[in-house]
Every structure is written in structure tokens, then in C-alpha cells.
């Protein structure tokens, strides 16, 4: 059922491009996330040329090799790819039915996004997104207690996005007629 829905959606280049662009944007965001302040400073700098700025921005994408473990790089790429697929499928469903998707699918998408965002911040020593957030509520030490040091959120993100894709695929393949209840 999922394969059939994927074939149905991605037979169109438009949705393939949407998934690719969205997935790449999520990947870029996750690579840039630890250094958003630095990026803002470089982009605003009057001494750096446009070429300097672009070179720097592209170079930061290499951090997937240096600033991630093999495990965190794997689920970060998985989150980016699944998120792209998810967005393309939700847009396809929305356009197909011309109505908002049912709340379960939307909720799962947001849940996947949020847990994915927490997960993709887990680069270098000390969680970069979750750490400051937890320290606000005095629970900074919580990360150290987690067996994978906060990478659980990345795994949860992959799970929720996969579930969301499953739900959306199911809805896409649902017939547009009412079922007759037979006694």
C-alpha cells in the first residue's frame, strides 16, 4: 500500500522536486543549526565578498562528516529524506482531496518535525538545541541520564515521520466513496 502510494505521488516530477528541495533544506538547516549566529554575522559582514559568504555556507555542509557521529549523521539524513517525502505526500493528498488532511496525519507530521528538530541538534559534545531548552527548566543534566545522550529524539523523529508517511499513504490510497456497512 505504501509502495503504491509512493509510486502514485512520485510519478510526478513536481512532487519529486518538492521532496528533494524540502529534504535538502532540512539537511542544510541541520548542518547550519549549531552556527546560526556565526552565519548571520558572516552574511551581514561588509568585509566578506559574496563569494566568501557562499564558500563559507557551503563549507559548513561538510560538518556532517566532522561534527556528527556516524549514527547521528545517519538519522539526520534519514530525517531530512523522510521529511521531504512526508511534505510532498501531504501536499499531494491536500491537492487531491482539496481539503485539509485529517488531524491525525497533521499531528504526526508536527510531532515528527519537532522530535526531529530536537534530534538534529545533537551534534558535538553537549546537545545544542535541547541543552539550552532543558537548562531553562533546570533539567540540563537530563541529557546525561539518557542512554544515547539525547539522540533518542532523532530516533523518535525518524519513527514519527515514518508513521506519518504511513498514515498519509493510507489516506491517499483510501477510495473516495463511503464504505457500506454490511450486517
Amino acid at each position: 500500500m505504501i509502495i503504491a502510494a509512493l509510486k502514485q505521488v512520485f510519478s510526478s516530477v513536481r512532487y519529486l522536486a518538492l521532496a528533494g528541495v524540502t529534504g535538502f533544506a532540512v539537511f542544510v538547516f541541520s548542518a547550519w543549526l549549531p552556527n546560526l549566529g556565526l552565519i548571520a554575522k558572516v552574511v551581514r559582514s561588509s568585509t566578506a565578498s559574496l563569494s566568501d559568504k557562499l564558500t563559507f555556507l557551503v563549507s559548513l555542509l561538510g560538518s556532517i562528516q566532522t561534527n556528527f557521529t556516524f549514527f547521528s549523521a545517519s538519522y539526520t539524513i534519514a530525517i531530512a529524506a523522510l521529511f521531504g517525502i512526508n511534505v510532498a505526500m501531504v501536499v499531494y493528498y491536500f491537492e487531491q482531496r482539496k481539503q485539509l488532511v485529517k488531524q491525525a496525519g497533521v499531528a504526526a507530521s508536527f510531532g515528527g518535525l519537532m522530535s526531529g528538530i530536537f534530534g538534529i541538534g545533537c551534534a558535538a559534545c553537549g546537545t545544542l538545541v535541547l541543552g539550552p531548552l532543558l537548562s531553562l527548566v533546570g533539567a540540563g543534566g537530563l541529557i546525561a541520564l539518557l542512554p544515547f545522550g539525547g539522540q533518542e529524539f532523532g530516533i523518535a523523529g525518524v519513527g514519527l515521520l515514518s508513521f506519518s508517511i504511513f498514515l498519509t499513504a493510507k489516506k491517499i490510497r483510501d477510495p473516495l466513496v463511503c464504505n457500506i456497512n454490511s450486517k
Partner: protein
Amino acid sequence: MTNENYQNTDEEIQELESRLKTLKQQSRGDKGNPYTIPVAILVAGVLIAGAVFYSAGNSTNPQTASVGNNIPQQAPPPSFGSGSSDNVKPVSSEDHIRGNPNAPVKIVEFSDFECPFCKRFHPTMQQVMEEYGKDGKVAWIYRHFPLDQLHPVKARKEAVAAECAGELGGNDAFWKYTDRFFELTPSNNQTDIDTVLPQIAREIGLDATKFNACLGSGKYNDHVESDYQDSLASGGTGTPYSVVIAPNGKTFAITGAQPYASVKSIIELALKEK
């Protein structure tokens, strides 16, 4: 029927319509608005994102905090995410400096000996010194940022050990110790410190007895803590955290073990900031 009767009927219809509207609203409320959950999640997401950005972007200097009638308050210790790279302690002769101390660009690296990303970033900084250190353009300053929650006991003790190496063999010994430590140890709190620390001291030609005495004395605990507080005040939230200081004093904070190309870009940019 009189006009008065018509008027009463109209009023009754209006009242009935009003009741019907109320009942419909109640009915919708009982079933639950289909958008409640997604909107709630979205709002929660925005709140969380706001909190994250607020905490990450808050550059209030806790050292200068005061309230009310200008009575200075005891400054609370800086917390994770509350600092700014502009607050980095100026480089002085007390620092461990590799390269030209008067280099136009200085990179202050806050590092944890048990952090695998610091281990990975160390060769990147060595490469920087190969390219920019020889002609005195860049100086590398090493400060301690032991993350006790992730690497309890060991990271801090290893920082003290490096200081002891510096005391016994000078600045050169500090750097030899640091290079060899990252080369030899597995990181992630897996170092057998009782064996490895004296072993490295012996390897680089230090007196093992004096080294062990220094290590046990705790005389550099305050120095390491001072570096730790400086890293928080400078905006460090994890390791490695590097503050690139341009000739005009402008700072660029690099978070994490970024690739050599990124560090090089920032150095080139800093060299232009005169």
C-alpha cells in the same frame, strides 16, 4: 393577529435562533475542533522554538548584572547559553599559546579532553597552524571546558594534568601533552587516567614523581574552573567551542568540530577585519 403578537413571535424566533446557535457551538465543542490538536502542537512548537532562540541568543552579561537602585548584586554564575563571544577573556601571558602571541588573529579554543569531537577537531587546528602559524598570522589559545555532566571526574582531572605538564615543562610541554593525549586516548570517558596521565608525562620527558604530586595537589583546580566559567561567559554550550578574534577585536564563535574549510573561511574573514 395584532402587531404586538407579530413582535412577540419575532422575538421568540430570535431567541430560538440564539439558543440553536449556542447549542450548535456546544455541540461542536463536545466533538472537539478538528484543528485543536494540530494548532496546539504548532503553538507549542513556536513556544519551544522561541524559548530555544531566546536562551541561545541571550547575550546578557551576568558579570555586570544589577537591579533596582544601582546596587551591585552578586553576579550569578553564567549558565549554558547565556554568554556571548564578545565576553571572552582577553588573551594574556597566562594562556597556553601556540604560535605568535602577537598574531593578528587569535583562536581561543575551549575544549574537553574526553570529547570525541575535540579529538577530531585537534588535527584541524594543527592544520590551521601549519598554514597560518608559520608566518605568524594566527595564534591558537587553549582553554579548558570540561563537561562534567557528560564526562564526570576524568575531563577535569585531565585538564589539571595538562596544566601540571605546563608547570613542569613550560608552554611547549603543555602542547606536547595535549597533542599526545588526543592522539592516544579513545575519549568518551574511556581513558584509564591512572595509567595514561603519568604515561604521557613520562613520554614527553617530565618527572613522573613531580607530575603525580602536582596532579594530587589540586593546585590547578581553580584555574580549570576559571577557564570553564570563561567558556560559559563566552557563549559556549558544548565542545569544541572556538572564538576567533580579529585584529579589530571583532569575534566569530565557531560551535562544534567544523571542517577545515569553514575555519579557514573565518580566518580569512577575520584577517580582513582591521
